[in-house]
């Protein structure tokens, strides 16, 4: 037996659990799940899903690493990094994850199996595409029974998609509060009246709402029988609803046309690109966290230098646009995620340990903060010493741009508020950051008052 640490999110399912041992992530299959696990493999379902890149591949390790008596086998799944959660995804990412779940379910039914749960936490973005990661979610199918995870699917996928579709606002962050998905009564109250005209909303939201709130409905489920055809009808209907959400959202946000609308000139971008390219050639970093990535102009540049890029922005539409581009061009090393630096995803779930906080989960060799410092200092009132301390926590290496008060953008920001930022200048910036970092390179962006730095943590 070797030493192992059970993953704190893996405690609900008696079928097995995820653990870490000697730097690798394993999944133990318990005797409890042995029959279903054999069915998954012997029916050809595993092979079909893995061939289609819908399920994560694993290697079987015939070694009881935990020494537990209920052990059946140990799986070593293909490693996935970074791990992201639905409250960091844009609409289209959740939509694709939902469609993957339904597709996996449909394929499972063809092999006499069914999904026993339907949560976005079973899905990760791997090489640019969603992939199902919970190998122990498959159960033997009983055609007389409806889908046990139907309600969970609605709460975790359909309802957030409906809310964002009808309210035209960024609602997915709410999933960090509702770890098991948004309750139906909440959704029924939030959706506008016109949504009642949709058959899908009427059936899956309002009808479900009235059925779950009716005391008669709660103890009657054993009487009625179901069939495979009925289940396939429900799956087809859900698939249609989710596929047919209009592709391009019309609502505009502050940042959605940043590069098109702003005063930033083409020359500035070209000059900046030239410097960042030089920085990329100097660094040995293999992974980068791009903060305030907007539409991913520089994320693509990092990606073209073979770095694994996590492109983050607090703006839902920017992330959405980048995700669609990544998908269309099949870019495997950019993961777009929503992140508000002033309020990153917290640790949530039981014991505050089920889902780790953003910066505990996502570690990179390099952090890029381009044209960002002024937004944090002046826009969010995060003082420079506090900011330097934050970057010290997250960045072994840092590419950072300083935008002084003389800059047009900063002038605009200060035009509508009193200038209380007395220490906001380049000398102080350098001093505060030198407490934690050594400056390796410093380059002025020609034609502007901005400066780019490449720094290394002391």
């Amino acid at each position, binding site marked *: 037996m070797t030493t192992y640490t059970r993953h704190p*999110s*893996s405690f*609900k*399912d*008696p*079928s097995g659990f995820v653990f870490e041992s000697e730097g690798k992530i394993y999944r133990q299959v318990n005797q409890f799940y042995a029959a279903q696990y054999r069915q998954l493999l012997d029916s050809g379902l595993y092979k079909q899903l893995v061939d289609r890149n819908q399920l994560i591949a694993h290697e079987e390790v015939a070694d009881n690493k935990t020494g537990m008596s209920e052990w059946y086998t140990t799986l070593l799944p293909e490693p996935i990094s970074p791990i992201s959660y639905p409250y960091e995804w844009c609409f289209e990412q959740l939509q694709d994850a939902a469609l993957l779940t339904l597709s996996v379910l449909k394929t499972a039914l063809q092999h006499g199996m069914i999904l*026993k*749960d339907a*949560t976005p*936490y*079973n899905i990760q973005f791997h090489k640019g595409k969603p992939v199902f990661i*919970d190998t122990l*979610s498959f159960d033997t199918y009983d055609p007389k*029974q*409806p*889908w*046990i*995870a*139907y*309600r*969970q699917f609605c709460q975790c996928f359909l309802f957030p998609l409906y809310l964002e579709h009808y309210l035209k606002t960024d609602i997915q962050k709410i999933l960090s509060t509702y770890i098991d998905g948004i309750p139906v009564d909440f959704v029924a109250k939030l959706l506008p009246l016109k949504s009642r005209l949709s*058959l899908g909303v009427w*059936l*899956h939201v309002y*009808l*479900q709402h009235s*059925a*779950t709130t*009716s005391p008669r*409905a*709660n*103890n*009657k*489920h*054993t009487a*009625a029988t*179901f069939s495979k*055809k*009925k*289940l*396939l*009808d*429900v799956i*087809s*209907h859900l698939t*249609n609803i989710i596929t047919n959400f209009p592709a391009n959202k019309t609502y505009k946000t502050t940042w959605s046309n940043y590069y098109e609308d702003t005063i930033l000139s083409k020359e500035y971008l070209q000059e900046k690109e030239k410097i960042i390219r030089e920085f990329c050639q100097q660094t040995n970093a293999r992974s980068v966290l791009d903060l305030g990535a907007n539409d991913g102009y520089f994320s693509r540049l990092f990606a073209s230098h073979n770095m694994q890029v996590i492109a983050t922005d607090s703006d839902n539409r920017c992330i959405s646009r980048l995700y669609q581009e990544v998908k269309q061009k099949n870019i495997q090393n950019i993961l777009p995620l929503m992140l508000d630096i002033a309020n990153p995803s917290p640790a949530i779930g039981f014991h505050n340990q089920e889902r780790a906080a953003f910066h505990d989960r996502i570690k990179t060799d390099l952090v890029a903060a381009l044209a960002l410092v002024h937004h944090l200092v002046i826009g969010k009132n995060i003082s420079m010493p506090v900011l330097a301390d934050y970057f010290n926590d997250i960045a072994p290496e840092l590419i950072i741009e300083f935008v002084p008060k003389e800059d047009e953008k900063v002038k605009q920001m200060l035009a509508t508020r009193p200038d209380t930022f007395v220490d906001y200048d380049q000398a102080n910036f350098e001093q505060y950051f030198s407490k934690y970092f050594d400056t390796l390179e410093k380059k002025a962006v020609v034609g502007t008052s901005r400066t780019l730095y490449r720094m290394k943590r002391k």
Partner: protein
Amino acid sequence: MYIDPGSGSYLIQVIIAAILGALFYFKNIWWKVKAFFWKPKKEDTEGEDIAK
């Protein structure tokens, strides 16, 4: 990752499936009527996956 069966979730699926079943049934008839009168060029549209 594992869930408890949702109370009420079973009955609601029975109702939804019944409604969808009826809708698809009538849609199917509609397709047949349409095919009879309009005579589509492609033979296979009649048997198309009606659930779509």
